[in-house]
């Protein structure tokens, strides 16, 4: 039977050789002695998670911003994963800003969360907590050895298939060693009621620089 060979170039595109070979019932691959037909398409057609943006080996930046990954036609939500995120200043909290047109979206960022320590008894549940013009991550950062955070966020746009028309939602699970230093695990939700369309996100500390091994942004393909 005729087959296809897909060659991934590693940057979101792949080449398809539509008559590039065939696989027989005996599992033998046959390569035809002719020029294959080439077609290039984007990885966005593959479904599942699609990497939309990334930043790696970030050192001492004022902020880490992704301003152009939102596409509500293609994706119904977004996954953001950060790894070994650290602060340049001791005893600070990270702030997360939703973005539009390369500017922060202002308003009341509502918040609820629970956090559980893994090496002390300090734990808690907090509801109906608000921040103005940004979301404050409820686990502090320090500059000591191994004081870093990891997290996975699911981000829902206020425009698109599952829109509530005026609400941006984000929830994230994070692990970290805070400035005490205690080991924490937390589940956090934040909501911004706004008609300004979500286009991006920014990570920043109240003071001092931000560093990270990596932050990856994925779209969940419809």
């Amino acid at each position, binding site marked *: 039977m005729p087959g296809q060979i897909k060659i991934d170039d590693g940057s979101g595109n792949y080449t398809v050789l539509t008559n590039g070979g065939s696989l027989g019932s005996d599992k033998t691959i046959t390569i035809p002695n002719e020029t294959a037909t080439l077609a290039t398409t984007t990885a966005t057609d593959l479904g599942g998670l699609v990497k939309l943006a*990334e930043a790696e080996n970030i050192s*001492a*930046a004022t902020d880490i*911003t*992704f301003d*152009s990954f939102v596409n509500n036609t293609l994706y119904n939500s977004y996954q953001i994963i950060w790894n070994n995120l650290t602060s340049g200043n001791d005893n600070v909290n990270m702030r997360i800003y939703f973005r539009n047109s390369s500017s922060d979206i202002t308003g009341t960022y509502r918040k609820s969360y629970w956090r559980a320590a893994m090496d002390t008894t300090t734990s808690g549940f907090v509801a109906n907590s608000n921040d103005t013009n940004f979301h404050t991550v409820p686990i502090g950062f320090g500059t000591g050895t191994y004081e870093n955070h990891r997290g996975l966020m699911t981000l829902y746009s206020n425009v698109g298939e599952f829109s509530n028309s005026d609400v941006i939602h984000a929830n994230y699970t994070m692990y970290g060693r805070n400035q005490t230093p205690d080991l924490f695990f937390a589940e956090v939700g934040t909501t911004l009621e706004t008609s300004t369309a979500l286009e991006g996100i920014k990570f920043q500390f*109240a*003071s*001092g620089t931000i560093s990270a091994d990596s932050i990856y942004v994925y779209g969940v393909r419809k």
Partner: protein
Amino acid sequence: MAQSLEDIKASFEAPTHRVVDGVQVDLTAEEVEETLNTWADNELARQLDEEQNGWLYNRQAEYPSLEDCIHALLDGGDTLTDLQAQRQAVKDAYPKG
């Protein structure tokens, strides 16, 4: 006691760049100054909050757990006395500001 705004600002190393869509973008002189001022304002606010409410945050962090409190209330006797002593020790360590 909180530091002065000038001292806080001077304590920061001037930032050089931000990262946008994975690309390093150098800051202008104006952006560096603006960032340092914002950092200093935010750090001063944190220090003032710590000065005013630090005793509360520390007590909350170090009080015996709710589980221990319930256990002591149900048991009474020495268990309750010990728990009250633990709470008092935390209060003594962090007096109201």
